[in-house]
């Protein structure tokens, strides 16, 4: 199920503005990769190119390649809709569908692929996905209640359940804990640790401890100044990045001596 991601010579643009320049990196299957770096350096932008959500913004486009198990996401004839069905995404702010119940939220993606799923299959899938997102015990008695009635942390885990219900190859998470309290954060981090057994996970975070706790590899991005593109400065094992990075900028950033 899990696939590798290879980014090759990728430039990312918003119309004429180059937001990310010349990124090349290889992400192994069944691993957690963290993107860190100062605000505005293009972490979210790069993440969104990995499931072609970037091009939802008018004028946004890329140059270069993103290979998922060798297939170029940006190749001719590749349908972004198909790409997004295989590469799931969790956003910074929890965004369950407000008019849907918890159950329907979990099933939303599956129903897109396959309109008529037998009730029993659907129920099993809801339970499995919610178990997978560590949310089952908290919501099993109110699956038909609206998803918006949950706490922020529960909503975020509901969004994770929704994303993993379609069994994606890769799971992208953009600051998934930034709106959560420490306990919910811990729950999501535990979850990420479990998810990497079956998924390739890429996570953007501003929290150094979080990157250190959950990721196998860490990519540090930086920006030379406002209006300049973000670049990949250093990409290595997480322990290397945090303990003996090669670049001075990385060391300054992870030790909090930045700027």
């Amino acid at each position, binding site marked *: 199920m899990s696939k590798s991601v290879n980014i090759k010579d990728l430039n990312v643009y918003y119309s004429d503005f180059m937001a990310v320049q010349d990124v090349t990196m290889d992400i192994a299957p069944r691993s957690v990769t963290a993107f860190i770096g100062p605000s505005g350096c293009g972490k*979210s932008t790069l993440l969104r190119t990995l499931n072609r*959500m970037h091009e939802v913004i*008018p004028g946004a486009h890329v140059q270069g390649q993103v290979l998922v198990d060798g297939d170029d996401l940006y190749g001719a004839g590749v349908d972004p809709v198909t*790409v997004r069905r295989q590469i799931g995404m969790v*956003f910074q702010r929890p*965004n369950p569908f*407000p*008019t849907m119940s918890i159950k329907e939220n979990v099933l939303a993606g599956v129903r897109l692929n396959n309109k008529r799923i037998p009730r029993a299959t659907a129920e099993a899938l809801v339970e499995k996905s919610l178990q997978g997102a560590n949310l089952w015990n908290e919501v099993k008695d109110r699956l038909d209640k*609206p998803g918006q009635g949950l706490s922020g942390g529960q909503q975020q885990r509901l969004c994770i359940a929704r994303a993993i219900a379609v069994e994606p190859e890769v799971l992208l998470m953009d600051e998934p804990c930034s709106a959560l309290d420490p306990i919910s954060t811990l729950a999501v981090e535990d979850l990420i640790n479990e998810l990497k057994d079956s998924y390739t996970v890429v996570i953007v975070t501003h929290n150094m401890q979080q990157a250190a706790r959950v990721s196998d590899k860490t990519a540090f991005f930086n920006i030379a100044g406002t209006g300049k593109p973000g670049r990949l400065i250093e990409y290595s094992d997480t322990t290397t990045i945090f303990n003996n990075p090669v670049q001075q900028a990385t060391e300054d950033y992870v030790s909090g001596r930045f700027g």
Partner: protein
Amino acid sequence: MSESSRVGPRMSAATKARPADRIFRLLSTSAAVSIMVILAGVALFLIVRSLPAILANWQTTPELSTGPTGGFASFFSYVGPLAFGTVWASVIALLMATPVAVGIALFISHYSPRKLAGFLGYIVDLLAAVPSVVFGLWGILVMRPFLLPMQVWLNEYLGWIPLFSGKVTSTGSSILTGAVVLAVMVLPIITSISREIFLQTPKLHEEAALALGSTRWEMIRLTVFPYARSGVVSAILLGLGRALGETMAVAMIISPAILVSFKLTTEGENSQTIASNIALNFPIASGLQRDALIGTGLVLFVISLAVNMLARLILNAKPGGRKLWVRPRTEPRAKAIAIAAAEAGAETAIDTSQRSPAGRS
């Protein structure tokens, strides 16, 4: 920081009412009050003027048993068919206008390129500015001959459906033609309100749907429609409000009679509408007859008021029609705070306002 502490006391001093504030408050309050006075005045006028005709015995009052009001047992048997005709013509018009209007609104908000969207929006607004007499002329000179073959066809082949039965029109002056023209007239209001509401769908939810692998249409079904449902319903009701009161176009096109008829393609036996009946008969009516016409105006006033109030009620209810929408509604406020903070020069706030997803697919 030091600056803000200096601002503090000055701002609290400003809370004392100043003359300019007081004058403005007086002006705006009296404007608001005058609206209510006018509305109440109109209602009072309609009631007082129409009461004699409503209470009169139509068979024994010579003035009412002849002329435009002749042949009716009472005010209610006179106004009943008219009220029916008014609602009937409007409902047919809405049935035709709604799908088209919602389609255009959706195209503008979610499908067309941005430049085309602006242009289309402008065209639709222009349509709203066309005087109804012009629509009436267009209906007579263009739509009647244009729709005639279709009506003949409908009558001939689908005549077994009661709606299309009867003796088909020879000039095109049927209620169907009138309704088509009415539909074009109510199109702009439904389109522009729907478009505004479609555009307000939270980006967050649209992106959630897209990231799950929705096509554009699936995304719209999953997020835009649930969000916009109540708004579109009230847009339709506002359109209905406009159609109900429309006079000239209907008066010029249809060939009416005061009766209840569901037939769409006949002429000379189309249900007359209240507004166009008043317009046609007021000049030739006298005394009590005029009072009767004013009475029908009162009925139209009540119908329109009810429809408009219902529309406002639905529109003011939370988008999506459920309490659940309380949360997303805080979003504009958060944005406003971010913008205010950005203007105050807080760099972090500028950054968050940039990060809030902008633009649309």
